[in-house]
């Protein structure tokens, strides 16, 4: 099951939708892992004739199914970092009317949304659909280091080693949630880690 109902939260927390086909002169899909399923759900031959799919499998095996949609352009990258220069180049050359569809993990959608916003698309006009892992991209508010794919709360900052509480406070600019030291008052008094939504 690749869909998850996020519990209601503070206004800062991003809310994701369901991809729907929109009119436009091009369709850019950026997805990782189970995000492929959302593309398979929304794709039509007309869209695919003007579509560019950028897919990061992260160990999933949807590549053949996406290729079979016969998009105008298809790229499979080993990681987001390896794909981002291509994303930037595609956006740099793009024209008004391009529709952007982001799907998969929160970290992927947040970072790709950031690129699209910098290219001049208002964030409200960028479609998103969450699929797959509910792990978060976290920023340590103390050392500013980013820890990817955080599944537990609290967790240990991969940069400075502080024990961080997972907040719902989100930064669109950083494409990351904020992690705040949980044992600052009483060092070492750290609650047992559990899943973020447990």
């Amino acid at each position: 099951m690749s869909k998850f109902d996020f519990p209601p939260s503070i206004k800062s927390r991003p809310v994701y939708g369901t991809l729907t086909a929109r009119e436009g002169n091009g369709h850019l899909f950026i997805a990782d892992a189970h995000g492929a399923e959302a593309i398979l759900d929304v794709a039509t031959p007309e869209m695919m004739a003007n579509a560019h799919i950028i897919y990061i499998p992260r160990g999933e095996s949807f590549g053949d199914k996406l290729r079979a949609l016969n998009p105008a352009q298809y790229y499979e990258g080993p990681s987001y970092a390896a794909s981002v220069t291509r994303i930037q180049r595609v956006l740099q050359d793009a024209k008004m009317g391009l529709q952007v569809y982001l799907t998969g993990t929160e970290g992927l959608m947040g970072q790709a949304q950031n690129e699209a916003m910098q290219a001049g698309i208002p964030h409200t006009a960028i479609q998103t659909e969450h699929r797959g892992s509910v792990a978060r991209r976290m920023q340590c508010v103390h050392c500013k280091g980013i820890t990817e794919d955080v599944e537990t709360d609290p967790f240990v900052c991969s940069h400075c080693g502080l024990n961080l509480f997972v907040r719902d406070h989100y930064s669109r600019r950083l494409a990351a949630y904020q992690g705040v030291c949980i044992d600052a008052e009483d060092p070492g008094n750290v609650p047992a880690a559990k899943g973020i939504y447990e």
Partner: protein
Amino acid sequence: MSAAPQKAKAGAERIDVTVSAVVPLNDLVTRFEFQRRDGADFPPFSGGAHTVVEMKDGDRSRLNPYSLMSDPADLSTYAISVRRDDQGRGGSLYMHNNVSQGDDMVITYPVNLFSLDLRAKKHVFLAGGIGITPFMAMIEQLERSNGNWELHYSVRSADLGTYTDVLTYKYPNKVHVYIDDQNQAIDLETLLDGQPLGTHAYVCGPKGMIDWVHATGSKMGWPDENVHSEEFLAPAPGEPFEVRLCKSDKTITVGENESLLEAIERAGVDAPFLCRGGSCGQCETDVVASDGEFIHRDHWLEEEDHASGKKIMPCVSRFIGKQLELDR
């Protein structure tokens, strides 16, 4: 009542000015330039801002919004360009017939409801007729920051092409003029097609033109946020109707040729306002009771507010029916 400090008088702050020049531009359009009576600089404004001009027309007080079209970098002078509307409610006729150089007038601080989105990679301006005015200031503003813009300006005839001469002389590669009576028209689909990502379009002109640009933009996949428009509505005439103002304990009759807001002001009630054209939201008023039909004409309230019968924008909207009671 909000917690914010209440201003002494409704509307934006006022500035006492003298008419420093009256420049007829063609058969219909005249430019009016203002200087402050106290000799100070005008407050800075950004392209797209308007001022509300007070006209003392006999015992009638007119308040009409006009886009500031002078260079925002020049704070010694504010200028507006007014198109004479012989069928209108009389504000533009008053300006053309009664205002001359040296006259004292009162205008308001600038208010901008049509500003540039400076995140844009490119600005495409679409003007129809006198809709050119806000773009005159926007262009000067962008030229100072080396902004990327182009103007597509549709005019009825070469003679009525206000400022086409200045614009095409200064910016021959950025200004495109389309003359109706020479069968020239903006090819909007071709124009919008292929604009770089991050382009913003701005349209000012007749309602049909504004609707056309919004509709064509969405059909071509442009986000709504990238298409900006400004249309000042003049209040439409209509059947006179009676209104009860609860807070003021007054009952007034709105005449055929005045707006509800003007009638409220005529009764000596100080009601909030800014744009007087249905865009800014300042004059939003709660309806206490009503028995009849609202004629909503504003761009401010949501459709559900219009349907609810609980709110009205008195600057442009009217009412037909037996009874209307407002919280004012």
